[in-house]
């Protein structure tokens, strides 16, 4: 009989604790899902539900491109035409730069900046032109901030951008497979699948990848409205991007923007699988090298000299 009050108070205590626990649990759950309520402002539900690029069918792509065009129109005041250019069969793209004539004037850097809708405030670009001391191939000795007249007497100039490696270290390290190598040799990024971990940026031996620290700022009249899903559409904040050989142009047969802008004619672009192409003639007849060959990355980007 003396145990009864103890028992009843025990039951009461347990009940209270259960209730408390349940309430706390419900509150914690509510707090946990709270960010979802703010979500529509930053991220549309459709974007959240979007699948990996490789799993999209034509209908999905049309819906997504439409949505991205709407978003760009809302955010940048210009409605772009975003397309999804598939790789061309029988094509493997390659690039060669003539270091005998490159003068380091940086027109390619600027052309890339404009073509690919880079952030205006940071002068972002996929290309860096390294001013190198003659006799060295050590990228670490290169300088990108020179502002004197070019070419300087004791220097040579080496533009560096994504080398579109056949053994790309950057795609291997991506934990979510948001970046991969396409059949035409171009290494691409699905900006809507990238989680922004920047592993790829660290893995690239050529410093070719860039991270969008903030949402790119571009005046409406400077937005390039000809855009591709895997290339120059305006990137969201917090994702990695890189040179894609202007695939929105090159997959339609056009030359890359950096090549067209080069005032010295140092740049050569073409299809490696075409024996009659300019790029093949250069590989067969010029003194050609690739950057950091010892790493075994097998770049599709070549440097050559006139003699």
């Amino acid at each position, binding site marked *: 009989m003396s145990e009864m009050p103890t028992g009843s108070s025990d039951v009461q205590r347990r009940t209270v604790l259960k209730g408390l626990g*349940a309430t706390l649990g419900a509150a914690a759950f509510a707090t946990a899902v709270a960010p979802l309520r703010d979500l529509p402002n930053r991220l549309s539900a*459709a974007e959240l539900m979007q699948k990996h690029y490789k799993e999209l069918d034509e209908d999905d792509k049309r819906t997504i491109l439409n949505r991205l065009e709407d978003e760009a129109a809302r955010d940048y005041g210009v409605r772009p035409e975003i397309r999804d250019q598939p790789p061309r069969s029988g094509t493997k793209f390659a690039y060669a730069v003539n270091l005998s004539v490159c003068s380091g004037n940086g027109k390619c850097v600027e052309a890339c900046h404009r073509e690919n809708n880079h952030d205006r405030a940071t002068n972002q670009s996929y290309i860096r032109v390294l001013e190198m001391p003659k006799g060295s191939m050590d990228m670490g000795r290169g300088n990108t901030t020179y502002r004197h007249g070019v070419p300087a007497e004791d220097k040579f100039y080496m533009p560096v951008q994504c080398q579109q490696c056949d053994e790309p270290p950057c795609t291997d390290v991506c934990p979510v497979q948001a970046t991969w190598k396409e059949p035409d040799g171009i290494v691409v990024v699905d900006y809507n699948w990238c989680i922004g971990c920047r592993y790829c940026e660290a893995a690239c031996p050529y410093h070719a990848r860039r991270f969008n620290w903030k949402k790119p700022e571009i005046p409406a009249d400077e937005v390039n409205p000809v855009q591709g899903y895997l290339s120059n559409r305006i990137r969201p904040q917090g994702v990695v991007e890189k040179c894609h050989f202007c695939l929105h142009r090159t997959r339609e047969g056009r030359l890359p923007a950096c090549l067209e802008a080069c005032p010295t004619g140092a740049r050569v672009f073409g299809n490696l699988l075409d024996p009659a192409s300019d790029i093949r003639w250069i590989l067969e007849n010029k003194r050609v090298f690739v950057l950091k060959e010892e790493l075994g990355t097998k770049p599709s980007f070549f440097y050559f000299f006139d003699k």
Partner: protein
Amino acid sequence: MRNRTIVLIAAAGIGTALTVSWTWTTKSRADSPRQSRAVEQIPMPPPPDAASNAATMSNENTAGASAPRYSVTIRTPAPSPGVTTGLIDGQGRLVTVPCATCHSMVEPPPPASALGLQSLKNFHKGLVLEHGKLTCASCHNPEDSRTYRLADGTVVEGWDVMELCSQCHGPQRTDYDHGAHGGMTGYWDLAAGPRTRNSCTSCHSPHEPAFGPMRPTFKPIDRFLLDRDHHEGSPEDMTRE
């Protein structure tokens, strides 16, 4: 009894939360099909390049010599406005005279004196000739100032200088013919579109052909590089535009 009530209330709380989140999820799920249906109803206008794309594809399929190919155009330099006289007209413009104004009457000097550029003090003022050991008549046709003349006497009409320059610059011409020298615009794939190429004189002044120095105008703005400049850079490096 009270025990059960509290548990029920808690369960109801969780249930509500779940319902809210479920409603939100289904709503968002419902969004996408609705959007895609809307797209299906309104047929997308074909992209402007669809036609040319299709052409490209068919070219690839038929692949080979029979595939139609677009042309490569070599830029023709604009005809020279003439020779600057060193005079300035009433509106402050340089007075230029067409070549034929004088050369239809005046006998050009023999090549030997032109080599010393003596005559250029009187005519062709401001013209600098820094091109190996060439004289005027190495390229210009003394018989007709509107044309050029190759070493074998062949007269070159108009402004097509490619053959003229190639007489001496063979290796450059070989490189040019294989796309390894000289800039271009347009299409790498001639089955998809045409290409325009620079001619020699698009980039090289025929009188001073050396490619002049340039000043880089576009530089990355990188806060880490800015810091580095601050510590070891020259004052020139620290001035930002």
